[in-house]
């Protein structure tokens, strides 16, 4: 159990070293220095980049500044995905630090959602939690919570307070022993190769014969191509929180321990680098 708690802690405190550089096309009064930051994997880009924004504002004229957005190697980064997911999906096998280009112009409306304030992030976050609980407990747990409990979840994330968050999140992770797990596992599978943003389907943690479903079982159902083929050739990596759990890892445990604060298990399937 102590290990489980450590896992939760490690997941929460996971960080990605990031270098923010201003887009070359931006009009500046002087040269803009790059800005380095350790980004929390479980948080959202727009929630933790106030300092970045401030840093670059110094060298820019106020009239040139519009809504800030981020791009990595030509891909606009969606703020409503957790940072860890963005990194694992787009940059997991690149040299650190992660180099992100900051834009203040030409917001790509087609690809990105606008984020005028933190309340938008909060709304998104809370809706994710409610969706996950709908899958896990038919929304019973989240509906039993009071407004302040919801607020506690959000404030825990916003202020990076592990204990505050988990004091409440614990309830969302409970299940009756006779069921052996949640009703359905809230998960999302991201693929770089696919056009779809992600795969999300109903999937029970316990099979019809009573055995626990594993990560491998999930992938076999959702994306068999992600699994190694007969020849043992591994074409894809299955990455959660920057690590590759073994395929026999029980899905229920993964959902309890490796889920993001939004209660979803975000799984990235990326092609194995070919060197």
């Amino acid at each position, binding site marked *: 159990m102590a290990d489980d708690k*450590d896992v939760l802690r490690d997941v929460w405190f*996971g960080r990605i070293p990031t270098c923010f550089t201003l887009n070359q096309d931006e009009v500046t009064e002087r040269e803009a220095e790059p800005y*380095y930051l350790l980004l929390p994997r479980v948080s959202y880009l727009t929630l933790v980049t106030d300092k970045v924004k401030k840093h670059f504002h*110094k060298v820019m004229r106020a009239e040139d500044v519009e809504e800030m957005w981020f791009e990595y190697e030509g891909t606009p980064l969606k703020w409503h995905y957790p940072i860890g997911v963005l990194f694992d999906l787009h940059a997991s096998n690149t*040299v650190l630090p992660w180099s992100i280009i900051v834009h203040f112009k030409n917001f790509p409306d087609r690809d990105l959602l606008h984020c005028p304030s933190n309340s938008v992030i909060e709304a998104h976050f809370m809706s994710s939690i409610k969706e996950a609980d709908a899958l896990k407990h038919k929304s019973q747990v989240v509906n039993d919570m009071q407004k302040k409990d919801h607020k506690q979840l959000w404030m825990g994330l916003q202020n990076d307070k592990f204990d505050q968050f988990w004091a409440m999140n614990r309830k969302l992770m409970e299940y009756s022993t006779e069921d052996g797990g949640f009703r359905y596992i809230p998960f999302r599978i991201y693929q770089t190769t696919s056009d779809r943003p992600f795969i999300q389907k109903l999937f029970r943690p316990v099979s019809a014969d009573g055995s626990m479903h594993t990560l491998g079982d999930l992938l076999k159902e959702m994306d068999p191509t992600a699994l190694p083929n007969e020849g043992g050739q591994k074409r894809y990596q299955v990455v959660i929180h920057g*690590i590759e759990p073994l395929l*026999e890892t029980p899905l229920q445990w993964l959902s309890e321990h*490796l889920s993001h604060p939004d209660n979803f298990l975000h799984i990235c399937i990326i092609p194995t680098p070919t*060197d």
Partner: protein
Amino acid sequence: MAAVTNPAGVTERSGRVSAPRGGGRSMETWKREIVRQLNHRDRNQHVMYQDLIRFYTQLLEKTSLAKGILSCSKRRPSSDSSSSLSSLLHQNNQLKKTTGELAYQVVELQQQIKIKECVLEEQHARLSEGERQWTGAFDARQELQERVEQVRGQNEALKAEYDALLERQSQAETKLREEKVRGGRLLEDMIHRKQHAAASMNNRNERRSRAREAHLQRELQTAAKSKVTIDSCSSTPTTRSTSPKIEKQNESNERGHARLFRSASATSPKILSSIRELFHRKRRGHSVCSLVEDLNSPAALCLSARVPARARQVLEAHEQGINAVRFSSSSDLLATGGTDRVIKLWEVRAGGLTHRVTLDGSTEGITCIDFDPGGSRILASSYDKSALLWRLDDSVPKLTLTGHSRKVTAARFSTLPHQVVTGSADRTIRLWDLHRAACVQVADVASFCSDLVCSENCIISGHYDCKIRVWDSRTVSCVQELPAQGKVTSLDISSDHRQLLSCCRDDCLQLVELRWQSNDRMCFRADGFKCGSDSTKAVISPDGCFLAAGSADGVVYIWNVSTGNLETCLPDKHSSSISAVAWSLSGEYVVSVDKSRLAVLWSDI
């Protein structure tokens, strides 16, 4: 980095794909794998960059600050830097200028620093000065605190003292209030008593004036009736007219001795007695004492007393019991004193008593009365522990002699002028000087003094211890003690001072011959004679031949001295115990008084 992890993951997984079917141990394996990978991930992505990024951020902040300082001077040149060399030169010049300016600034700043240092030193000095002052002030404060403590202690002591005083004051005040209240009450009481006394005085005055009026009326009535008795009155002058003749004869016979025979002895048929009187007179003439006494008393002595036979007048003389009765030396005035606190003077005229004046002033009953030899003053002793002296023409006492601690039983004029003697129940005999109105000598006796008489240079007192004591009046020392049969109730001395009569409670009169100091005694008793009280007074007749005393049964007994037998007794007038008897010096009248307010005038006709 990820490239490094991957091979490990791949190698491990190759051995573990079949694990889920292997058993429970594989559960641990996948978890351990996750923990390991997480640690590895953190090491590569987090720990390695943590410090680096922090330092970079710090540096960035510092440079941005530096830039901020320099930006003002650099901004413009940098914007012009793209132009020609001249502008660069210009820039150089400007920079030099700024360097100069900066150097100047440095100098200036150094100067400022010096000034500041001076100021600092000054401040240091001031600070040390202030500290010194502070320590001084602190010491002073401590001193002051000590003083405060001292003063507080003193204050407390004073306060305690003050409280104590306050308490005492309050106590004193309450006492004062109580005393005031008591004083007020006493004052009220006194006022009340005074009012009472005034009321009773008024009452008495009124009564007296009414009595006087009544008396006047009675006199007027008698005057109106006097016409009828004019013949009987004429006989009296005739008898009187005869007496001067005899007086003249007597004068020649008695070698110029002034004698006033106002009694009717000359006309008395008792020749025997008159002869004895003459004899008696001669005998007295030999003594020096009698000579002195005769000089003192201008009053006449009778040749012979007449034994009374019937009552001339019976009257209710006082409002309460009568204790004392006395004739004046001139025999025309009678004084009675009673329990009703007054002395009444009666004129003895035509065989009757007429009330002349009432003397008051005593606050208690009168016990004894004495006239002075000149007949102008009257002395009385009283139950109120005092003796009083009146002049006959004034009803208010001239003197009140106070000093005895109990009732005064006897008061007599001494043979010396201006001296009186009193005897009291307080077992003392006191001599008083009338000039000074003060007690001059006190004799302590062992017993209650009931009566006393005075002779030349001696005082004789009777006591309840059955003794009669003779005192030298000059030294006031007891020179002789004579025995008696019982409690002595009264004493009387004969007019020649040779015989002393004492009346005792054993119902016996005793006559002692004083002359030879022989204590020659004669006892007089009678069947039916009973001494009625402790103050029953018996008398010797002025000629010394008879003794008179009143009995408890209201009968006056008269004994003959020469025979020692009862001469006569006078019954039926008194209904209660007779307290005193008096015989007029003329020998003509006897008055007896009793406890039931009656006074009876007896005479032989």
